[in-house]
């Protein structure tokens, strides 16, 4: 059955096949081997059915007049000598419109190209919405396509691994609570070489500011923590970091539209802020 429908879709194959330098990523290359047209159809329709119940998804579909005025907003388009296949509306055409037209009945090969377009050729920066005369949320639509790819597991391996880490430990890079607290105390000692009696207050209740770093900082860029500690202390800010899980603001789930992990990360930070009675949350960016 699966083979039959794949054949059917290759028979009527009239989708734009891009001739691009291949992106070697096990997240694409290995996952696509396990996909069938039926699996894709199920995932695509699951997302489309949610989309149909919301105006943010439907309004752009019914409004877009195909004027391509969004193209000049896109840095991908501009940096590829105005190649029309990099224009925002072209990306929507090659992914979402095709999937809707075929009701999700597409070949794994097609889906691999879709994943490449939405993950490797679009940053969801929403600049195109600033150039669209209607203010259509093009990035939201491509985000919905990312969601389809995520459900199929067709995601760059690096991001998927970090999202797995977030869903298991609420940190981006598999950091345990012990490692986290240890790193903060180690950095406190480091900064004391420069500023006398510096503190990195951990779990201080009622502080003004709670700082939520990215997981990368305790893992590979500890000097960021030292610098933040210096700035906070010299500026005289009443600050703290949370000891419990939910201190990591690297929300990789957001990028691949893993909504479940995404909301758990945000909830973790807010839970910590409520627990410590914080007035302001400061994130690394």
């Amino acid at each position: 059955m699966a083979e039959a429908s794949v054949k059917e879709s290759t028979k009527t194959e009239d989708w734009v096949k891009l001739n691009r330098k291949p992106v070697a990523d096990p997240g694409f290359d290995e996952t696509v081997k396990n996909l069938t047209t039926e699996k894709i159809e199920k995932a695509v329709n699951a997302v489309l059915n949610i989309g149909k119940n919301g105006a943010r998804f439907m309004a752009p579909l019914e409004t877009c007049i195909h004027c391509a005025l969004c193209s000049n907003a896109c840095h991908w388009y501009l940096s590829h000598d105005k190649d029309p296949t990099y224009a925002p509306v072209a990306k929507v055409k090659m992914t979402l419109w095709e999937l809707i037209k075929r009701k999700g009945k597409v070949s794994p090969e097609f889906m691999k190209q879709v994943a490449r377009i939405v993950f490797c050729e679009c940053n969801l920066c929403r600049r195109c919405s600033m150039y669209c005369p209607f203010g259509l949320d093009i990035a939201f639509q491509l985000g919905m396509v990312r969601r389809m790819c995520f459900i199929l597991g067709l995601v760059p391996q690096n991001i998927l691994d970090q999202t797995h880490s977030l869903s298991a430990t609420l940190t981006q890079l598999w950091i345990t609570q012990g490692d986290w607290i240890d790193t903060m105390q180690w950095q406190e000692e480091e900064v004391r070489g420069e500023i006398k009696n510096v503190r990195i207050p951990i779990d201080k209740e009622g502080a003004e500011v709670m700082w939520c770093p990215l997981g990368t900082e305790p893992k590979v860029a500890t000097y960021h923590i030292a610098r933040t500690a210096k700035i906070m202390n010299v500026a005289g800010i009443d600050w703290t970091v949370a000891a419990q899980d939910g201190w990591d603001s690297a929300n990789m789930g957001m990028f691949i539209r893993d909504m479940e992990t995404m909301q758990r990360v945000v909830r973790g930070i807010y839970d910590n802020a409520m627990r410590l009675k914080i007035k302001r949350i400061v994130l690394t960016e």
Partner: protein
Amino acid sequence: MLDFIRDLSLYNFVRGPLVWIAFLIFIGGSIYKVRGMILLAKKEKVVQPYMSFKLSLRSILHWVFPFASVNWRSRWVISTATFLFHVGLVILPIFLLAHNVLIYESWGISWWTVSEGFADIMTMIVIACCGFFFVRRIFAPEVRFVTFADDYLILAIAFLPFITGFLAYHQWLLPHKIMVILHMIFGSLMLIAIPFTRLGHMLYFFLTRAYMGSDQGYRHSQDW
């Protein structure tokens, strides 16, 4: 064929019931579509709470003024064409003398009109803009890549009432009466098509702009 078109019954149907049907479908369909979209927006948790009347209005005004936004300024040719085209599209049907005369004869009311010479020039501009959009669809690579058959269709739906009206006014090509009948048919077709094709951007423009204006304004940003 021409005899059939010259027949008075067709003329009476076109200027009577057909116009009523077209307007009813246009108004009813518009209300139905806009209401449907607003209900969809209310279902979303992150749309309704951020909507702001002030920010929506700011965004809409920012984009309906020519050359107010960055994109309109950076592409002055398409901007000029777009604005002339849409101004003509809205002003001409409402403020044309001939349309006003018809309404005055039927209901005894009328409003101020644009002069016939101005209307003539404006119609030519609208027709030229249609030609420009058509050429752009064919020759601009980024537009051609996303052009489908229905894009030409909706351009034709907008184009036909104006070209037939123009030809009827000058009494060229076909006998006046036939051209007027064609003009009325195409005008009705356009009214009917607005809610049910992507010509509906006329209605959704205000909704989508209001959303993006509120969304950006909430983040203390503004439209470019």
